[in-house]
């Protein structure tokens, strides 16, 4: 049931009732990427942020204090796990849940930053994320209401027609979770310290975007 000329054949699949978790070469590579960057977040120490104070001669480097560092790392790993889940989930609603978890953990990564600009941006980003949940969950709900199933495996290949509105809602929801053109606040939150963790924000949102493209072309 899954030999579409889009992303190659399914390499393996694990059925849970009508929900089938599968891996194609495409989703497998996305998954490996999420795992790779999570490993980077676990392994590497955060960078020291070098800064010049205006009007002075000195250069200052700051370290992130221990507890904040641990919290950021925890959130980055959680974000990586959510992204991994989103890349291999075979169920549209699970994908949506993982997507909103990505949004949540992205806020968490920068929440401990003391920088006012970062916090402001994180707040704006969080509000956009929350509003984006309407189209995201709405899209999944419309898919369930019109087709009676949420399984990507069942819907694959256009055997059951999924309304255009649902697909558009899903894309809109994922875009709201951190993709152009709603990401302007997000550019600002990358000013926070802790490179390997901040990178996860970007990795996860790109991965869920790539995955939603696959999903809406497949169904």
């Amino acid at each position, binding site marked *: 049931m899954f030999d579409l000329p889009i992303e190659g054949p399914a390499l393996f699949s694990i059925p*849970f*009732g009508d929900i089938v978790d599968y891996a194609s070469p495409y989703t497998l590579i996305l998954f490996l990427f999420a795992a790779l960057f999570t490993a980077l977040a676990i392994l590497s120490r955060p960078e020291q942020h070098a800064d010049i104070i205006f009007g002075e001669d000195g250069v200052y480097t700051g370290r992130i204090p221990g507890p904040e560092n641990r919290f950021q790392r925890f959130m980055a790993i959680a974000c990586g796990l959510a992204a991994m889940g989103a890349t291999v989930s075979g169920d549209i*609603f699970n994908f*949506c*849940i993982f997507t*909103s*978890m990505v*949004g*949540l953990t992205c*806020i*968490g990564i920068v*929440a401990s930053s003391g920088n*006012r600009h970062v*916090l*402001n941006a*994180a*707040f704006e980003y*969080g*509000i956009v*994320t*929350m*509003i984006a*949940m*309407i189209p*995201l*969950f*709405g899209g*999944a*709900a*419309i898919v*369930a*209401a*019109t*087709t*009676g199933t*949420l399984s990507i495996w069942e819907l694959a290949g256009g055997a059951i*027609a999924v*309304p*255009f*509105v649902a697909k558009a809602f899903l894309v809109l929801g994922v875009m709201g979770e951190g993709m152009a053109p709603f990401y302007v606040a997000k550019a600002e939150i990358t000013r926070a310290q802790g490179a390997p963790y901040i990178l996860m924000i970007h990795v996860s949102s790109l991965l869920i975007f790539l995955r939603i493209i696959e999903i809406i072309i497949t169904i």
Partner: protein
Amino acid sequence: MIGEIMAGDHYLPGIAIICVAIVILMTTFFREYDDLHRLILTGCSEVVALCIIAFLATDLAEALILPGLVVSLAELVALSEIYINKEGLGLVPAPDRTIEVFSSAPPIIAAILVIYGIVLSGFTGGAVAGVGLLFYYLCLDHKERFALLETVSGYAWVLWVFAFFIFMMLPAYWFFAVMMAGSAIFVKVTIKLALIGTMKPDQLLEETDHV
């Protein structure tokens, strides 16, 4: 556009009403500039999102609302935390629980609620019993053992998930799994609801001191 509707007959009118709600919500977001108000409005937007799912009007809808609710609540809490940080708010409002009925009501009401909850069992029973415990804690200035309650709640949650694995792997033992899931969710919901009433202002103050 929407072809064969699997959900009920009232699906399309419901969606139309939701659309109106979304338009109103978006208008408010365009007009509102105060951060705190926008935070509250995002809470409303969650309700709208959950409403769309609720229109499925099947068992599935219930199963979908719960995780959606959890994630959105978590996000709301995280956003509030960021709001507190960015506005530099550290003060917690002074306790004001001088409600007369709390001191005069007989504690037996709590016991009745808990017993009735056990009779009901499951999710609803948990809610009822939780209200009972909540009432008890609100009435008395009680010293609770949070760590113990949270641990019990955690194990109950694990049991619940485990019961679902039995459903999937060993369907023959469904009755055992049902009993396990039912009692576990009962314990869990009871404790969760009871915990709401036990967050004392002094403990809140302690926590904010660490931040």
